[in-house]
Each structure stands twice: as C-alpha cells, then as structure tokens.
C-alpha cells in the first residue's frame, strides 16, 4: 500500500483515535490518541491488507525545547550568538510536533508481506507519562520499552519487567530528556565532575 492509502485505512477504522496524519518525505505517519494505541497496533498486525508483522523501532522524542534551542555562540564563552542563516526552503512543510504534550512515543512498523512502513506517533503529557505496552503483540517491544523508560521516564502499562536497561539502577533521572544536562556525570566510582 502507498502511504496515503495506509493512512486512510487507519483513519477509516479508528476515526476517533486519529488526531492527525501526514506523509512527510513519503513516510506514512499517524498521530494517535493514547487510548487508541493498543487497538490500532492489534489492527495493524492482524488486518490482512496491512500485515505489519515487524515492530521495527520504538522510541520517544522530548519536544520540550523544539524550536527554542538558542543559536549556538560563535565562541561558547563569549555568548555572542550567530544569526542563523536561511534554511533550505520546503515546498510541503512538516506539520510540526504534536501540540500541547511534551513527549511523543514513536513506533515504526513494517510488513514483510506488503513491504510498507507506517509510523505511529502517540503524544504523551509529562504529568501522566504512561502508554500501553505492546509486549503482548510483539516480543521485541520488551527491551525497546525498557529503553524508552530508561531514557525518557515514560512508563508502559502492562510491561512484565519495566526496569532500566542501558543505565544502571542507581542512576538518577532520564538522560535523553532535554532538561538532563549533556555534561552531567553520575559515575558509580571516581570523581563526580
């Protein structure tokens, strides 16, 4: 299926659940309500016209500083910002990040039978950072969800063993959140900074 008919198919079956959609650069993308995620994922896997048998990737994005990052200074100590030069113009611009929520959990599905890909984006607010786990549908979701919990602090309802995977248990905070400083160190032994 081509990107637009993929989107149509999800939209027709879940008119309530779909918040937005786009096919920027040919990547079919559907933005979903959190409550619809499990249903849509099951539909993607089981519908004979879609047959998304692969959960290729599961990750998250912290949109809290999107478009607000300060221009990088020419010499970082001087604080003199370089005026950004014109970016390469875009004829069909990207609709932008999901409004109103800090995080977005991003799923990439692939079907080996039909060779099509679909991206699901689920906006998640900071105050209630929890989405349904897909571990019942795809075994591979287990570790991927653990990584998202580790890096972003988004928890997954129904996950059998949600614990840190890349960082150690004693680690404080979630390193891929934008408010986690890039140069902060938390070694178990040795000097702290």
């Amino acid at each position: 299926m081509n990107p637009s008919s993929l989107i149509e198919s999800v939209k027709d079956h879940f008119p309530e659940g779909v918040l937005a959609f786009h096919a920027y650069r040919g990547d079919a993308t559907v933005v979903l309500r959190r409550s619809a995620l499990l249903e849509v994922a099951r539909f993607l896997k089981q519908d004979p016209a879609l047959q998304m048998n692969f959960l290729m990737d599961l990750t998250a994005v912290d949109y809290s500083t999107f478009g607000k990052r300060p221009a990088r200074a020419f010499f970082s100590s001087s604080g003199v910002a370089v005026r950004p030069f014109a970016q390469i113009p875009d004829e069909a611009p990207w609709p932008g990040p999901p409004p109103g929520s800090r995080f977005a959990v991003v799923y990439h599905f692939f079907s080996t039978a039909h060779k099509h890909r679909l991206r699901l984006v689920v906006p998640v607010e900071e105050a209630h950072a929890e989405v349904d786990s897909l571990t019942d549908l795809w075994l591979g979701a287990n570790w991927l969800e653990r990584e998202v919990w580790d890096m972003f602090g988004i928890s997954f309802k129904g996950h059998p063993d949600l614990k840190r995977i890349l960082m150690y248990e004693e680690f404080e905070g979630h390193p891929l959140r934008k408010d986690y400083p890039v140069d902060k160190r938390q070694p178990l032994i040795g000097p702290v900074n």
Partner: protein
Amino acid sequence: MEQTETTSTLETITSSVDDSAGGETRDMILNIGPAHPAMHGIVRIVVRLDGEQVEEVETEIGYLHRGFEKMAETVDYNGVIPYTDRLNYVSPLINNMGYCMTVEKLLELSVPERCHYIRVILSEISRISDHLTCVGATAMELGAFTVFLYMIKAREYLWDLVEKVTGARLTVTYCRVGGVKADLPEDFAEACHKAFEETRTVLSESDKLLTRNRIFVDRMAGTGVISSDDAVAYGITGPFLRATGAEYDVRKDCPYSVYDRLPFDVPVGSRGDNMDRYLVRMEEMEQSMRIVEAALRDMPRGPVLVDPGSGRPIPAAQMVDLAKVGNIGAIAGGSAVVGPTLEGSGHAEHPSIAVDDKRVFLPPKEDTYGNIEGLMQQFKLVMFGHGVRVPQGEVYFPVEGANGELGFYLVSDGGGGPYRLRVRPPCFAIMSALSQLLTGDMVADIVPTFGSVNMIGGELDR
C-alpha cells in the same frame, strides 16, 4: 568454560546427590561476563543451570553506553558522522552511509551516481569484513584458531582497501551529507580484485576446514534454534532472520541507493540454528563480492585526475600557501591535486562525488583558495554555529547493516544540528531474544550461539 567467574552474591551450588536416588537437587547460578573472553565486548549473562542444561537466562547490557543519541543533539549534521563510525565499529562505512542518506532524505537531495556506487562498494566491503570477524571469532571459540587467523588475514586485505580510500582502517568518517569525502584512488579496481582473490582463497580454505568438520558441525547444528515467527516477533533482521527461512533483506525489499541495479542473491537458511547462520554469512560474503565487482564494472567513470585541458596540477597544500600570501594569480587556471585520504576534492572529481548544492557541500579546493565566494562557502559550512541547516521534519531511513536493518530516525527543528537522532541497532533485537535462544541448550552452547549473534557493543549500547 574454564574461565567463568562466580561472584560472591551468586554462589555456586552444585548438586551433590544424584537424581535417580530421589535426593535433593539444586540449580546452579553461573555468571558470565561482563569481562569475559567469550563475551565479545562487554555484556553480562547470568544463567540458571540444571546440571549442564540452561534453565533461565538474564542478559544485562549497557556496559558500553556512551550516550550516542545525546551527543548527536549537541553537534552539527556533519559532526555526527564520526560518532556513527563507533556504532558498529566492524563495518563503520554502512553506518556512515545510513546516517548520511537519512539527512539527505530530509533535505531531498540526490547525490551523483558515481557517489552512490562508491558508497555501495565500500558498504559491501565492510559487510564482508564484518562477516569475516563474526565467523572467524565463532570458529576460534570452538577451537578452530586457524580459521580465525585466516579470516583476520582476509580482513586485513579488505581494510587495506578501506585505508587506501579513507585514510583510516576503522574510524573512517568517509561519507558526508551530500556526497563522500573524496573519490576512489586511481588503482582501486585493481587492488580490489586482488584483495577479493585473497579473500576467496581464505573463504574456500575456511569452508574446507569448517563446513564438514565433525566437531564444528556438532557444536553448531541444532543449537541456538529460533523459529521464523519468533524471530519476526523479536524484530530480528539480517542474516540471523534469513537463517530461519524468512527472506527479508532491506537491499532487495526496500532498495536504496543503486542496489536495485546490481545483481545479487539473498541466501536463506531453513533451520534457524547456528549452522544455518554460519552458512548464510559465508554465502553473503560471496554475494557482496559479486555486488562490488558488478558495481566496479557499471559505475560511471571517474575523472581523469590530470586532464590536460583543466590546467596544470598544483597540490592542494601548495595552494593553501599561495592563497595565504594572496598570490591568487598563481592558482588561477590550476587544478588542485588532493590525496584521496585528505579532506576535500578538486574541480575534476567534485561533480561526480558530491551534490551540487552550495548550502550542503564544501566547494572544490580551487574555489576555496582561489576566490572569495568559495572561501565563504567553506567557512559557512565548517565554522562553529554554521553548517548544514535542514528544514523541520522527521524521517526514518533503513539500510541493510551487517547484522540487519540499521535504521536512523531523525527529527530536525530547523537548527544547526539534529534535534533527536535515534538509531535502530540491529543486534539489539537479537540480544533481546538471547534468553529464548539459550534456554534449553547446554551451557557449552552459549558460546557458539552468542558468537552467531555477532553482538557489537558499540551499536548495542550506543
């Protein structure tokens, strides 16, 4: 498993009373790694054993976490490329290519044809070196040290090729957004054929030593079995998936670059055990050589380095000196000669290896040193706070890495560097299936199964 170590918390309890007598038996907990010769890189596996049978496995990863994704948010687009070298450090050129093609997808750039071929050739050479390392290391751990030495010898020939092109063996940083760093050296095709001849000899020798070797086959066949459905459910791709009989290969199913024009077969197994994975990898190396040979034959010819019409050749280093003292007149009409291992290219090769877009790619050296526009273009791309600026958006782009689908998911906020860069590391999915692969096998089977996973710490832990 002589060197396995047990920690004080995980005490070793051996069953002292035998089963048939109806006495008490207790499970034994064995801790392997993180620093253990059989755990390539660093990973920790804790197994619960009943006698020699593995009952339960817990895999602990993250010992090599360097924060790749966090670091990528702090640098500009071309600045990420050296970090991608260190993802899968056995086949860094595939990572380079995957990342650059992701940014190019967001920029809607198409690179020149010769550049596509160069990237494909170097990717396939990297794939061979990756498979050689994997098969060689597995064979060594099963006692076939000769095969390991043979295969590392073949890898040396291939890395000599890579060094000739990029100037480095491992941390190559060869691709750029919109092209590659430099053209192939003149005698590359010849050197490549020679290296392949050596590699083929090694492969046929190793094949004779291993494929029908009783010890090797007994250890490999029927161990580490996974079904095709389970492999898909875990998200396993690459040779590991193809050994189960599923035929998914990104190069065939979602062709990128010029793979749709090159002839190659995708070998598949049927049993999904270690032996099939070994056979698939052996055949894939042959297919990769086939791709490279076809690409060398079909690729558009590069420029003649010293074209009589393009002016007298001046080494780029001399051009810098002339330009520094303002002697532009001496440069005018000359053509820059840049060694292929140095950054940059002259007028002659620039159009065939780089996209013609001033906002993305460095100018030819004659322009950098010879006129103010070229100098400004260079500065606007390399100075801190400048660089390539891509529009706001998100893209996902997969390539076939040596271990499976290597995908990059990039979100841009229109600033100077990636807002978020996510890598889908192929061996992450395989490692998550490791507990299922090992459960039920013998403790000695951990070694060949773990070897055939081809765990690469750099991409697993990022």
